[in-house]
């Protein structure tokens, strides 16, 4: 993992001192709320429905056990004993006091964490594959490049007051688990014929009220050119992105209006002018950062473990957990293990302070003291020996963290919705809870197979409904909560926009509708055909008929 040096510590501490001063000046009235707002947002502090909400960055989703214990401590000491892991590899605390937020940030700074640029019209936390460095299907670990971007984008003198928020995601694997095509900038790590590492560069993706899938600007950008290229991309956007209408201010609108060819032409023209001035870091710096992400010292073990097979043979829950929640590691004999934060009937992404402490302990015992956070709102132990799985699973299961549903229908992404959020039109969490209760049957879930449901409580799309195999969008219809059903979206390498199936439903009707859609799939699927593939083959009509036909 990356470790701060004296420079990083000094900068983050300076930021805490600055924020403490800003809070003091707001409390004395020296700063108006209008002036304070963008400053607090750039430190992740929102004003929500009931209280302030603090969003803390988990850069590229990587945490140490020490950091996880600190997150548990913050939940216990400053909040109501829980935190909420988000779709952008952040954790949100829903009940901090304004006057205590500088203390929280200082505690976080002590363990090399921060809330810098987790909100506001600036470059946000860079996200990546939760299995980075711990998956067999990877070209290279993307995290050193994410850390390079984190540093370059922090307190950027030119790009801290952009037209709108700006999100960058990077994946090192062919299977895209970071939804890079749904980001303002997406980067896909590639290796060229000469064995050199670089990136495919995509721009202009985004959700919100105008969902757009990012377009490729460049097939291969060498590592040494990464930051100067990003700088050119941001400069053209900062200068020409719309500022007259916040709903048209994201880069996706600029790229659509200009055309990706023209945007690329302008970026490349600017890049040619700046690529030789020292924006990019020296090779020694890339090497320094890479050294922190060296593979952990794992002794190769056998993948055949009799104890694991025996338990799986007699315990269907463990067998399911093994099938769904563990994935192939780079090193034989190891897996990455997903800890589901989606217990049936629970709140997607929430974890209590005790659960966070337990995960920290388990990381120390079984996973090189390392933890990951996924954009699907789960936690991951990235480096677990197969032989340790029975012991690990028993402890997770006892703490309510053993739900074997990773990637299945009940592994739902949901935004906080009207239970917390001041932008929401409807609640999201109760819909997720009702669906997971309705489908609380492991055999049925296993039969249905991979199916991603994503729920947003308003058009801002924090719950990624545009990218759901089944998407649910809450809208306000004459003062009542109404839920639209969308089908066929994908956030993966085969990214697609989900399409609205028909008229919306009330909170009970939407759950029935999901069940009917699943029933159509089960009836129509071909051998081994997953839900998304079946939908793409069948088209919407057969689903429409089943859902609306009887009315």
């Amino acid at each position, binding site marked *: 993992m990356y470790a701060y040096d004296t420079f990083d510590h*000094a900068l983050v501490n*300076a930021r805490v001192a600055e924020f403490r001063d800003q809070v003091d000046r707001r409390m004395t009235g020296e700063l108006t709320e209008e002036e304070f707002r963008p400053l607090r947002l750039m430190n992740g502090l929102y004003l929500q429905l009931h209280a302030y909400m603090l969003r803390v960055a988990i850069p590229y989703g990587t945490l140490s056990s020490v950091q996880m214990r600190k997150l548990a401590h913050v939940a216990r000491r400053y909040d109501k004993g829980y935190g909420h892991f988000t779709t952008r590899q952040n954790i949100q605390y829903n009940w901090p006091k304004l006057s205590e937020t500088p203390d929280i940030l200082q505690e976080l700074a002590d363990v090399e964490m921060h809330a810098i640029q987790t909100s506001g019209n600036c470059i946000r936390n860079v996200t990546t594959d939760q299995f980075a460095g711990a998956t067999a299907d990877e070209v290279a670990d993307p995290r050193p490049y994410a850390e390079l971007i984190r540093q370059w984008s922090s307190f950027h003198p030119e790009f*801290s007051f952009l037209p709108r928020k700006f999100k960058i995601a990077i994946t090192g694997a062919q299977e895209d688990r970071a939804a890079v095509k749904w980001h303002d900038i997406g980067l896909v790590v590639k290796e060229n014929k000469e064995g050199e590492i670089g990136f495919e560069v995509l721009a202009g993706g985004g959700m919100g009220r105008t969902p757009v899938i990012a377009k490729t600007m460049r097939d291969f950008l060498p590592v040494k050119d990464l930051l100067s290229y990003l700088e050119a991309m941001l400069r053209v956007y900062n200068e020409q992105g719309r500022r007259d209408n916040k709903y048209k201010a994201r880069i996706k609108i600029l790229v659509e209006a200009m055309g990706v060819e023209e945007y690329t032409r302008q970026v490349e023209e600017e890049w040619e002018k700046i690529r030789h001035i020292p924006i990019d870091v*020296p090779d020694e710096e890339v090497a320094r950062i890479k050294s922190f992400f060296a593979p952990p010292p794992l002794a190769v073990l056998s993948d055949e473990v009799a104890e694991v097979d025996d338990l799986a043979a007699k315990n269907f829950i463990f067998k399911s957990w093994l099938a769904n929640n563990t994935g192939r590691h780079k090193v034989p004999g190891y897996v990455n293990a997903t800890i589901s934060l989606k217990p049936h009937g629970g709140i997607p992404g929430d974890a209590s302070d005790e659960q966070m402490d337990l995960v920290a302990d388990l990381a120390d015992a079984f996973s090189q003291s390392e933890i990951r956070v996924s954009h699907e709102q789960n936690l991951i132990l990235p480096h677990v020996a197969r032989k340790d799985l029975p012991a690990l699973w028993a402890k997770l299961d006892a703490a309510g963290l053993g739900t074997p549903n990773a990637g299945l229908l009940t592994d739902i992404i949901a935004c906080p919705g009207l239970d917390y959020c001041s932008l929401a039109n409807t609640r999201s969490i109760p819909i997720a809870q009702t669906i997971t209760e309705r489908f609380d049957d492991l055999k049925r879930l296993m039969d249905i197979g991979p199916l991603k449901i994503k729920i947003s409580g308003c058009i801002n799309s924090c719950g990624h409904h545009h990218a759901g195999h089944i998407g649910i969008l809450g809208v306000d219809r004459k003062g009542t909560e109404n839920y639209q059903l969308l089908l066929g979206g994908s956030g993966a390498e085969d990214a697609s926009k989900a399409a609205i199936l028909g008229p919306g439903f009330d909170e009970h009707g939407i759950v029935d509708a999901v069940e009917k859609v699943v029933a159509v799939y089960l009836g129509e699927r071909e051998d081994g055909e997953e839900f998304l593939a079946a939908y793409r083959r069948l088209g919407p009509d057969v689903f429409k008929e089943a859902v609306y036909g009887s009315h």
Partner: protein
Amino acid sequence: MALINLTGIQPIDYTALADEAKPGEGETIAVPVAQLIEENADLFATAGSVGAIIGTETPFDALGDIVGKIDFAVIEFPAFGDGRGFSLAVRLRKDFGFKGEIRAVGPVIPDQALFLLRAGFDTVEASGERKAAFEAALERFPAFYQSDFGGQVSVAHTRHSAEGQRKAS
């Protein structure tokens, strides 16, 4: 109003040229950039020193024709969140090698002092009661992750210089 001096430059004392007005012989004036581009021969001949008042909506390449003739630039922020002003200053320094004073006017706030300095601004006009806050904000950060056109070297480069290695250890 107070003038906050970010770089220690000798600030220019100018008069904004009123609409339709002609500059006095040898006068130091600031003129909206559109006016400078349209009709400038007389103006440059008469005035002693000319600066451009640049709105944030100005495309940077429109400055190419006049940048060699002006002595200072005044970038007008309509709102402190309008970050185009930062890119304009960067463009003046980087694309045109402009060495004169760049001043920020409009509702910029003390917490932007270092962003302004690092983007290439020399001075800021602000309300007098905010002078101290601006000056305090200038001292806030000990180092930066970016190199800039004012000569600041990024932490990434400092780390690998002899001086930086002493500090980092």
